[in-house]
């Protein structure tokens, strides 16, 4: 079974600064997808960024980028130029590419506070 570990229950960052959220995972599969989801107080889970394991290039979406280290099974999220609206719970998630069971395995989450 796959597991996802987020070792930082809480993080804080000053507005306009950069912060990195950590995620490690364990799997015996070679082909899979990794995601970062954001859940603000409005409750909706919003996809921030997606990484396909067979792609070596790290994914980027505007101010959000990942550092994907497949051998180390590490998938960290970097938020640049942090904004007040980035404050939220961030979940790292794993999904097998070859399974049809659609299961998303989530980490326990990191609560990010952005200080003005």
């Amino acid at each position, binding site marked *: 079974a796959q597991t996802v570990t987020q070792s930082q229950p809480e993080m804080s960052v000053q507005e306009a600064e950069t912060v990195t959220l950590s995620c490690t995972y364990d799997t015996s599969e070679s082909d899979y997808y990794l995601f970062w989801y954001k859940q603000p107080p409005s*409750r*909706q889970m919003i*996809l921030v960024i997606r990484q396909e394991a067979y792609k070596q290039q790290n994914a980027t979406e505007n101010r959000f980028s990942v550092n994907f280290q497949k051998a180390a099974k590490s998938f960290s999220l970097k938020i640049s130029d942090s904004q007040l609206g980035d404050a939220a719970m961030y979940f790292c998630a794993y999904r097998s*590419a*070859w399974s049809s069971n*659609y299961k998303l395995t*989530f980490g*326990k*989450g990191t609560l990010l506070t952005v200080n003005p």
Partner: protein
Amino acid sequence: DTEVTQTPKHLVMGMTNKKSLKCEQHMGHRAMYWYKQKAKKPPELMFVYSYEKLSINESVPSRFSPECPNSSLLNLHLHALQPEDSALYLCASSQGATGPRRPMNTEAFFGQGTRLTVV
């Protein structure tokens, strides 16, 4: 349209009541999900429907009864719930795959959830 719409947003029900949660998407997704989320915890998968058929039931108590009337709608019928069932219930959808092949798009889109309180 990348929205998953859930109704109602808030629900308070007694332990003897029967109620239903509704979820709708118009993205042509063929996989739909129900998750339960307690405060400050990750979502826990309850059910998955794939092509309108129940694909996964994560050993959910029978007081929760899912239904998928068509490819755009997903319901969760609630009956005789317990106070510990109070939580945020999230619906999600994604593109489906008919077998163990790589799905073209894998991300799940979530609704805003229904905050359920059982009294």
